[in-house]
């Protein structure tokens, strides 16, 4: 049970402020000063959460963040299924990220689709010393020979590439010409660039702009006839099938989805996106860049939406429909009405089991705010949240549309802070990533991975919400959490070895 129950907002705020003061005490002075800017208690009515973000992580504190390569290869490019993404550099980066993100797709893997494969240049010492450009050229030849049905190649730079001065752009151009204008995209997403995955998203977006959009022949015959209802789903990685359970709703309301970025996406869909009448943007953090570019260059409006939980889904369907005529607006109402009985049944089943339960979140760049509505639909309350790699505009959206007064906010949280916060606040559920999962489960706190959906999903759309509700119930109400303390021991109270 959460300790927040029955506490007034003022009491919660005071406790949270005290907690922040406490965790800062562990740091050397210089570090405490820097970390203080990333921790806050949200004040209702403020336009942002009052924390600094998108700044360098501090060495040695156990940040949860990844790198630019993870943002480009792992997030943006990796799911494009008919292209081959080469992890260019040593073997590890590609190995650790191999098929780990659950970007679902259909196809014949190894023949015409390649998402769950690990292509690497496996750099050796001689490649570092003499450069890897010749090897890269040869790799492209070998890819062409052994995987002739690939529609394109991307080169995902790992740290050494930028440090040894390789010219992957030149290799890409030469090889593209050699293979009749084949799409070959060099991506400068070396892991040391920027402060987190976030810059990798941006670099990957820019690479689409420069190496795909700018190379599409404007006079080429279109693959399909445009309609006034063509939209593109931007920023949905189809984790556990999220984009599919979203697409089905958009199609049911009368729209036509011409592209998915990038879950279950293809090169042809990327190329066709400038034909969309509207870009609908789920993960703002990772794909706002390309949406803005398409608005500027092609005049395509974009619209953020949220497909977590029935309240936000209905709001989003209406918002998307507002860009179209009455036919689509009616379609949105029809879809909302169609699924209402399902949503009522899901909530009737699960809300009584979850009512009043508290949640603490720490996820990437979207979900720390986006899933709050879904929890609220189930009667749950998010009492703490923070972004691994959000920017100020994410915290603005969070403050203005999502979090309640007194919510504890932690940006780029450190392992130590997160443990301390959870230990003291004692939420009923923590939602974060694989590195955090077992820490909190050991403490006896129910946990769901909110990057991979803990191998479940989809969570998007109406179909997904039923799964989300089931999973949260399954986590919180598992009988195992009553057994963490041996019956001959005192009542449980998690503690931290490291801090003692």
């Amino acid at each position: 049970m959460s300790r927040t129950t029955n506490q007034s907002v003022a009491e919660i705020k005071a406790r949270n402020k005290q907690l922040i003061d406490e965790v800062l005490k562990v740091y050397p002075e210089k570090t405490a000063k820097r970390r203080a800017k990333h921790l806050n208690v949200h004040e209702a009515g403020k336009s942002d959460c009052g924390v600094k973000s998108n700044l360098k992580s501090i060495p040695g504190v156990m940040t949860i963040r990844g790198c630019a390569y993870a943002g480009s290869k792992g997030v943006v490019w990796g799911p494009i299924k008919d292209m081959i993404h080469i992890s260019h550099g040593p073997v590890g980066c590609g190995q650790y990220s191999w098929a780990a993100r659950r970007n679902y797709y259909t196809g014949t893997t190894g023949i015409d689709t390649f998402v769950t494969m690990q292509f690497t240049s496996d750099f050796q010492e001689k490649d570092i010393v003499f450069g890897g450009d010749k090897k890269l050229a040869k790799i492209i030849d070998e890819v062409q020979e052994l995987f002739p049905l690939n529609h394109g190649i991307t080169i995902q730079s790992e740290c050494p590439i930028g440090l040894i001065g390789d010219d992957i752009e030149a290799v890409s151009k030469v090889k593209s010409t050699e293979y009749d204008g084949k799409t070959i995209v060099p991506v400068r997403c070396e892991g040391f660039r920027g402060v987190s995955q976030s810059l990798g998203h941006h670099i990957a977006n820019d690479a689409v702009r420069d190496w795909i959009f700018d190379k599409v022949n404007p006079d080429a015959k279109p693959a399909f006839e445009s309609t006034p209802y063509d939209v593109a789903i931007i920023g949905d990685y189809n984790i556990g099938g999220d984009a599919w359970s979203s697409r089905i709703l958009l199609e049911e309301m009368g729209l036509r989805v011409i592209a998915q970025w990038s879950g279950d996406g293809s090169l042809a869909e990327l190329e066709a996106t400038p034909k969309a009448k509207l870009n609908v943007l789920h993960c703002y953090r990772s794909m706002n860049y390309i949406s803005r570019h398409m608005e500027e260059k092609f005049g395509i409006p974009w619209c953020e939406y949220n497909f977590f939980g029935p309240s936000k889904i209905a709001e989003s369907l209406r918002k998307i429909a507002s860009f179209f005529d009455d036919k689509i607006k009616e379609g949105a109402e029809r879809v909302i009405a169609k699924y209402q009985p399902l949503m009522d049944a899901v909530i009737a089943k699960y809300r009584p089991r979850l009512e009043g339960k508290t949640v603490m979140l720490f996820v990437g760049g979207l979900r720390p705010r986006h899933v709050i509505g879904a929890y609220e639909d189930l009667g749950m309350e998010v009492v703490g949240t923070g972004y691994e790699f959000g920017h100020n505009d994410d915290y603005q959206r969070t403050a203005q549309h999502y979090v309640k007064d007194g919510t504890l906010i932690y940006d780029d949280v450190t392992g130590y802070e997160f443990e301390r916060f959870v230990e003291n606040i004692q939420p009923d559920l923590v939602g974060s990533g694989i590195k955090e999962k077992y820490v909190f489960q050991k403490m006896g706190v129910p946990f769901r991975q909110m990057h991979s959906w803990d191998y479940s999903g989809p969570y998007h759309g109406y179909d997904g919400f039923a799964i989300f509700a089931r999973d949260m119930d399954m986590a919180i109400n598992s009988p195992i959490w009553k057994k963490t303390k041996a019956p001959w021991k005192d009542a449980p109270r998690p503690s931290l070895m490291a801090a003692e």
Partner: protein
Amino acid sequence: MTQNAEHVLDHFELFRGPEYQQMLANKKALFENPQDPAEVERIREWAKTPEYREKNFAREALTVNPAKACQPLGAVFVAVGFEGTLPFVHGSQGCVAYYRSHLSRHFKEPSSCVSSSMTEDAAVFGGLNNMIDGLANTYNMYKPKMIAVSTTCMAEVIGDDLNAFIKTTKEKGSVPAEYDVPFAHTPAFVGSHVTGYDNALKGILEHFWDGKAGTAPKLERKENGKINFIGGFDGYTVGNIREIKRIFELMGIEYTILADNSDVFDTPTDGEFRMYDGGTTLEDAANAIHAKATISMQQYCTEKTLPFIEGHGHEVAAFNHPVGVSATDEFLMTLSRITGKPIAKALEQERGRLVDAMADSSAHIHGKKFAIYGDPDLCYGLAAFLLELGAEPTHVLSTNGNKAWAEKMEGLFASSPFGKNCHAYPGKDLWHMRSLLFTEPVDFLIGNTYGKYLERDTGTPLIRIGFPVFDRHHHHRYPVWGYQGGMSVLVKILDKIFDEVDKTRTDYSFDIIR
């Protein structure tokens, strides 16, 4: 609409329904610029041919689905095996997020490790300031007894000098001068995770034995008759190390397990998060110099460490991930010879039980063909076990195995009539394995989780033994070493064989007794 609240459908069922299938078919036909299905089929068949295999094996630059990771992973694996030790990886921070995730996904356990979070400015000016701040933060926040430093390829490419950096860091007061900060350079572009294991362990022993980077007198060895034991990089470390301790105790041998991470990767859920648990004490790590002998269970994980130890006067012995009767015999006889202690009666009985089990079941394994891939030592150990079961380890492939390993494997094959048509493939990857399985099919495949793609594509049933195993739970808790470990490997293999024959579903051959 197929979803319903009473029986919630998730991805397993939901997307197989007609609504979604129709939606996906439309998406493909209209927007994906799909390849002609006949052409997909043609290439799919072509990729199974000897001609494709030839092109595939002619690859010189591209690696596809390798079965190896990079050095720092091994270094982190070693570091957490010491009491209260936090691994500190100097370089880019994303790497550390990857190692932690990788280890957590295999062991279903927390994995604690910090990074010096170097970015562009550090690439230009070096990462000294990151280390100065980083060590101070780690020391204050997580209060480790020791911080073991290794490197990512970024720090290696720009040439950061760990020895000098740590010295400076101590001068700056980040950690006390006498505080233990062993280090190892672990470039990701050399070797693999097993190399990183080797370098990190050597770095820690060098630190304690050879004067803590010039800050303390070198230890002088006074032999105490104890045995040091090194497990190597091992996905079964939890079950294996516990089994080895049991064996040592049964034989009354005094021992030190070096890099004992069997507890930190198997902590209880009892309301308390243990960032550190168990591990080789720092005192034992230092005193390990006085041991009579050091035994490595994995030759290729200790190629530098073992000669270093030998150089300090130890007798050393290396094995190749011993699995089964003869390999365990050899291990125990070596222990007995070195220590002068007889092999325990209880172990003799366990041996007899394993032989008994193999005799009971050998008819079902005899003559079956297997493909194996994994780390070089594991491949050797498993192949040797299959040979003594009368099975044929037809293809044995190790991405991080070298020429010397291949020669050793060929020697093993030559030692048995069942090894006649078996071959070792050093430095090859799982795309090569795919061609092998299509052109020279075998009955079963042994490998890690990634083998499931090969199982799906080639129809070769996969027996999951190796690292990482992400998609099956808890196998790391059981040993594969010792006679008891051999028993669990045997049962794993048999279960798969029987499950496969029961897929016949006919009335004949669907036997109730076997």
